[in-house]
């Protein structure tokens, strides 16, 4: 049954991310923790793997519209490795509860930004 939920919610997350231009991660993490039942840290780790096919398609589509500047993207992508190391270290050091609450704060910020963009 969890398999069906994961498939359906994954599909829904894709639709929402296409509609609103937010990444799939913001939806993958709660799906994986609250519905599939992973720990919050595993949900975050698994979300990153699940993001890859989604952004691959997104980047390919954007590239067709001529919206990708590849050299800057490469510089950002490669230099992100340093930040990733720090982020992984902090996420594994923090307790599950704190990590969950931090993520909840991120959800509120994104919700506020979306609502702000929808004003009139």
């Amino acid at each position: 049954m969890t398999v069906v939920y994961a498939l359906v919610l994954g599909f829904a997350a894709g639709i929402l991310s296409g509609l609103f231009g937010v990444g799939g991660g913001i939806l993958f993490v709660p799906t994986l923790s609250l519905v599939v039942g992973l720990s919050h840290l595993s949900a975050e780790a698994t979300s990153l793997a699940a993001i890859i096919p989604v952004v691959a398609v997104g980047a390919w589509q954007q590239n067709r519209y001529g919206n990708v500047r590849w050299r800057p993207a490469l510089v950002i992508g490669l230099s992100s490795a340093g930040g990733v190391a720090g982020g992984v270290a902090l996420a594994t050091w923090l307790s599950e509860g704190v990590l969950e609450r931090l993520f909840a704060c991120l959800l509120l910020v994104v919700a506020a930004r979306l609502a702000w963009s929808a004003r009139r």
Partner: protein
Amino acid sequence: MSRTRPVVALPAIGLAAGFFSALFGVGGGVIVVPLLVLLLGYSTRWATGTSLAAIGLTALFGMAAYGALGEVSWPDAALVGFPAMLGTFVGTRAQQKVPTRVLTILFSVLLVAVAVRLFIG
């Protein structure tokens, strides 16, 4: 704009995006897009496209690091990621056709509800 600015700004954006992405398990577009617009004067469309391409690498590094720690559940990643890939096509198409304002408000309400659920954990 001086020529040195992207040389400093791009790696700085990358470092911040990587940290944010790995800490929250998200791509990092939430910060890459506004930073490209604010620091380097990108149009929103350029920023979105460039951010997506960069995030591919960021997520790859994050996946590798967490994978090495044994935190990635590979079957669940496939279960969620591949249907999402198909959903993205549908969502991107629908974006052109449906009135998004009400949907956007409903979506932010959903995000707030999930946040509340996580807070009361």
